[in-house]
Structure formats: structure tokens, C-alpha cells
């Protein structure tokens, strides 16, 4: 054991496993390490158990509700992935969503004839503006994003309340073409969910295959090293916050289209669910690893748990507790796998020496 190992007392390693056992464990570990796969397994098991209990769980309407329910959380979780991968976090997404949703409603109140694509673009732009405020403040203050976005969580929500001053916007105030966005289906799949799928695909592909996308992982793994290797860390982090704000804005517009009834409290407390979805989806909270696909699956899993608890006739009050337990299990599993992997690598290098 080297000196650096004793520095972290809890990182105790067992004896390296022997021959065949090591081989077999390596395989299951590698399967588990592909988080998307284990998430899909968990999701499949959950759906299977629920359907065995009540076969209407997989009926068309129920599936449609499920897909509708998770679309907004998926979009937010994917945006959050961009941020968390760079070793930051954005707690203000719930407030941005609320602000943009209310702004969209107000837009239709003021100008009833606005075509819906304009509303979507304006909403995304407002969200991006909020994200730019976050990114700009972080760049100026040089403090962790946690602090700044905690502040803007309050500030954006306060602006929302100040603006709304107790008013509520109803579905009747919005054009039907816009509201149709929220519940229309294409070949049985809700439009909202398709939008989420497009977002996941674009962000997932970007993170995986683009140079600047890979640089985000480098920044999250070790900001100082990233800077030394010539990555424009400040600019990338700023862009990530703008992108996340834009996605939160998109989610806000879709929220308005889906629910129709808007007050200043829309999306309150959503930020923790979003972070939870990303963490369950295998996005390491301290940056440098995770994928948009995983985060999206995490969001789907959390939403499915909610509806299957109802079907399984488990007290709905258990839902939040289950989500909490799941987060703890997910990060615990990650840690365990990382420790095993480190131990095995050490064992291998010791053999080789």
C-alpha cells in the first residue's frame, strides 16, 4: 500500500480475489457498471411486477400518461447532466421553469394571436437568459455553482411571485393550438415525449461525440488539468449553464402547454427531483462521468415508481421515501463498484510487477 492510500481511512481494500472468482465477478461488475443497462433492468422488473399485479398498467392510456408524466423531468435531467458533468450543479431549474411557464401564459394573455413556435422560442430564450445570469455570476464570483444557483433559485422564484402577484392563468386564456402541444399524440406517442426524446438524443450525441462535449468531462474530472491542457474552462462552463437554462425554458413552455393552469408556484421543489434523477441515472455528483441517456432513464424510473406505487396499492406517501432510498442505493453502488475496480486494478498491477 502506498502512502496516499492511508490518507483516506475508509478506503480499506480486501485481499485481491483469486483466479476464477475474479473473472466471474469481473463480468457481472462490468454489466453493472454500464449504468444504463442496470437501470433498464430495474425499470423492466418494476414494470413486470406492476403488470403482473394489474394488467391494465401496460394499457395504452396508462402508458401514455406515464410518457407524458416523465417528459418534462427527462428534459430537465438531461440539462442538469450537462452541468453536473462539469462538476457544477444548477439548483435554479425549478424556478426558471416556473418563471418561463408564467411568462408564456402572460404572453398569450397580452397577445392572444401569437403562434406557438414564437412562444416556444421566446420561452427558450428567456430560460437561456436566466442561465446566462447564473453562468455570468459564477464566472464573476468564482464560487461553487451550488451557492449562486441557490441564490438565483430564490431570486427567480421571487420575481415570478412579484410578477404574478397572486394571479392565476387558466387554460381558457391560451390558444388551443398551443394547448394541443401538451396532449397531442403522434402514432400513439405523446408529442411532449417525442420532444424529450429529441433532446436526449441531441445532448447524448453531443456529449459522446463532439470535442467540446468530451471537454466537459475533462473539466469535471480535474478543472486545473483541463485548463492546463488548453480547454477554455470558463467559456465552456458558461455555455453549459446557458444550455441548461434554455432546456429549463423549453420545459417551462411545455409545462404551460400541458397543465394550462399556471400560478407562480409552478415547479416548486422540482430541482431536487431533477438532481435525484441524474444521480440515480449514474451521473457522478462530483463531475466527470455519466451520460444523458442514464439521466433520462433515471427520470423515467422515478416517474414510473410513482405511478406503479399507486397501481400496487402502496400508500402514495411511500413514494418520496422510496426515491430517497433509491438515491442512497445508487450512490452506494457506484462507490462499491469504484472501490472493487480500484482493488482489482491494484491486484493486477501487483501481479504484473
Amino acid at each position, binding site marked *: 500500500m502506498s502512502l496516499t492510500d492511508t490518507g483516506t481511512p475508509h478506503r480499506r481494500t480486501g485481499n485481491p480475489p483469486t483466479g476464477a472468482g475474479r473473472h466471474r465477478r469481473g463480468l457481472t461488475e462490468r454489466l453493472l457498471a454500464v449504468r444504463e443497462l442496470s437501470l433498464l433492468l430495474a425499470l423492466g422488473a418494476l414494470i413486470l411486477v406492476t403488470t403482473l399485479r394489474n394488467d391494465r398498467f401496460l394499457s395504452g392510456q396508462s402508458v401514455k400518461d406515464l410518457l407524458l408524466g416523465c417528459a418534462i423531468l427527462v428534459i430537465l435531467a438531461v440539462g442538469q447532466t450537462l452541468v453536473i458533468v462539469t462538476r457544477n450543479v444548477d439548483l435554479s431549474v425549478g424556478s426558471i421553469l416556473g418563471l418561463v411557464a408564467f411568462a408564456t401564459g402572460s404572453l398569450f394573455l397580452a397577445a392572444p394571436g401569437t403562434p406557438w413556435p414564437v412562444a416556444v422560442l421566446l420561452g427558450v430564450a428567456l430560460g437561456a437568459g436566466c442561465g446566462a445570469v447564473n453562468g455570468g*455570476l459564477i464566472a464573476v464570483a468564482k464560487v461553487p455553482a451550488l451557492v449562486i444557483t*441557490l441564490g438565483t433559485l430564490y431570486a427567480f422564484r421571487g420575481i415570478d411571485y412579484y410578477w404574478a402577484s397572486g394571479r392565476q392563468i387558466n387554460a381558457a386564456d391560451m390558444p388551443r393550438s398551443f394547448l394541443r402541444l401538451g396532449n397531442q399524440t403522434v402514432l400513439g406517442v405523446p408529442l411532449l415525449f417525442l420532444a424529450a426524446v429529441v433532446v436526449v438524443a441531441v445532448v447524448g450525441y453531443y456529449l459522446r461525440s463532439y470535442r467540446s462535449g468530451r471537454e466537459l468531462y475533462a473539466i469535471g474530472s480535474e478543472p486545473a488539468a483541463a485548463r492546463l491542457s488548453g480547454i477554455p474552462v470558463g467559456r465552456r462552463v458558461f455555455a453549459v449553464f446557458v444550455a441548461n437554462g434554455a432546456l429549463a425554458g423549453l420545459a417551462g413552455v411545455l409545462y404551460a402547454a400541458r397543465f394550462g393552469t399556471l400560478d407562480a408556484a409552478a415547479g416548486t421543489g422540482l430541482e431536487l427531483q431533477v438532481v435525484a434523477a441524474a444521480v440515480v441515472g449514474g451521473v457522478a455528483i462530483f463531475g466527470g462521468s455519466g451520460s444523458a441517456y442514464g439521466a433520462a432513464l433515471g427520470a423515467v424510473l422515478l416517474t414510473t415508481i410513482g405511478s406503479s406505487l399507486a397501481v400496487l396499492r402502496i400508500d402514495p406517501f411511500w413514494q418520496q421515501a*422510496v426515491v430517497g432510498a433509491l438515491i*442512497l442505493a445508487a450512490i*452506494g453502488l457506484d462507490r462499491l463498484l469504484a472501490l472493487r475496480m480500484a482493488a482489482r486494478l491494484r491486484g493486477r498491477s501487483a501481479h504484473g510487477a
Partner: protein
Amino acid sequence: MAHDSLYAAPSSSSAETERRTGRLTGLRGVLGSWDVAVVVALVVAALLAGVSVESFATGRNVQFLLLDLVPLAMLALPMTLIVITGEIDLSVASTVGLCSTVMGQLWLSSGLSLELICVLVVLLGAVLGAVNGVFVTGFGLPSLAVTIGTLALYRGLSFVVLGDQAVADFPASWTAAAVRDIPGTSIPVAVLPVLLLALVFGVVLHATAAGRALYAMGNNDQAATFAGVSVARTKFWLFVASGAVCGLVGIFWTLRYASARGDNATGLELTVVTAVLLGGVSIFGGRGGLLGVVAGVLLLGVLRNALQLADVDANALTIVTGALLVASVVLPNAVADVRARLHRRRQRANPVAP
């Protein structure tokens, strides 16, 4: 200024490290006076509010103001110590909620005396804190992720315990005691235990070796370990202390509003963190003091109370909370930057003779 010139001595270091030490001393100077700045801001805010808002300086308002601040102030004490070690506990409000509902359920169905229930609730809080501690120190997981998990878990359990019901039939003698004043004044009795706790935490943090060790941990975990500090054990007990204080706050909250509900204290964790950061504690750990935090809590309370009296919508007040928090982190860095720049310019103007 002595340490300034010490750092300014241009040994062989490159321009980069020179710039960084310059910023560091500037930062240290600002943070050292941050306590004072918050206290001054508090006094100014209180004076302004007293002069311009009609009913602010009345005994009744002071009583409400202080009662409202008791939970926040109590939770901010252990949070300060935790943040100084470089960790965070986001589960405090959920722990308060769970302690409150368990207290209600025990009172409803167990037939135990309220004294015994209170002891059990504080113990429960300590156990919930210990769970956080085990995950963070035993398994080596990041406290941010762990306590987001237990935030959801404990809040969920508190709904499991009582559902959407409320327990409200606590004996009137107890609920009245929670809001009673110190005889002859308009200061609530509940302020006394807060002061006592603040004193204990203050002495531990600022006057004992254990307190210095907390700063050492916050600055560098490994260095602290090599210096003989048992990092894991200390952090574990901090989380336990935080949980126990949450138990106390749960009891106070339940009695003050004479109601044990699943959603008690929802969202309070972010206000607590805001107060601690506003009080000048660095989120990186290793910096900050209890005086600043107490002043930060009071400043937050005075501003919100005065604006509420001035008829600003209570929900829109979150703008103030958010703006204060952002300003409290942006300003010191901006000032430090300016100072460092001035310092460099001064150095360039009169270079040190070889």
C-alpha cells in the same frame, strides 16, 4: 499589513503564484472583516426599519421576529460547523419534519408522557443524523448527494408516519410555554436555549482544539489526517449533533404551531444554508465563524420581517433572500480582486530593492 509584506516578498515564484497569493491575502482580509460587515449591515437594517416601518420596533413584533428565527438560528449552528469541515447537510428540514410527525404519532397512540416523548424525539434526530454520518464517513460518499437522498427519504417517512393528517391536541400548558415571554420583557423564553446552544457551539468552534481541527479538515482533509485529527470520527459526530438539534427544533416547531404535520419545515434547509453562507462561512470549508452566522440569521430575519410589515408579498420576499446570498459571495471576491490589482500596481510602482 505585516503578513501582506510577508506574502509580497518576491521570492523566486512565478507571476501566477504571486497573483494567487495576492488574491489570497486580499480574500483573507475581507473575510476577516466579513463578520464585522454583517453585524454593521444588521444594525443599519434594524435602525432603518425601526425608523421607517411603523410597527417594526414594537414589543409584539420583536417577539414574533425572534420566535420565527428560533428554528433557523438553531439549525444554523451545527450547519456552520459542518460547512466549515467542507461537508453539507441538506436533510435538516426533513429531519425536523420526521421528528415532528413521530412526536405527534407517539403522543396520539403511545400513551407515553410528553417529557419522555421529547427525549425520544431528540434521540431519533441523533439517529437520523448518524445515518447521514455513516454514509458520509463510513462509506466515503459525498455529503451533498447523501443528504439529498436522506432529504427525500426522511420527508417521505414523515408522510408515512402521519399521512396527510395533523396531530394538534397537545396540552395547552406545553404549547403556551413554547411562545411564552421572559417575564417583564417581550423576548420569548425560547431564545434562551438558542443562546445557550450558540454559546456551546461557539466555544467548541473557537476555543478548543477540536474546533481548530474542524478548520484544518475544511482546508485539507489529508493534511488534517496526517496531523493526527480523526477526520471521519469528528465528521460523524457533527452529523449526529446536527440530527439531535433537528430533534429539538422538531419539538419546538410542533409545540409552537401546536401541530405535527408531514410537511412541517419543508424547504427550510435552503434558508439555513443561505444564512450560514451569508454569515461568511466559505462553502469550500475552512473559513468562517459563528458570530457572523448569528448576525446573518438576524439580518435575514430583520429584512424579511420589515419588508413584510411594509406590505411586500411574503413570497416575493425570496428575491431578498436570493439577492443577499448572491451579493454575499460576489462582493467579497470582487473586492478581493480589486485589492489584489491595487496591490500589484503598488508593487510595480516601487519594486523591492535587491
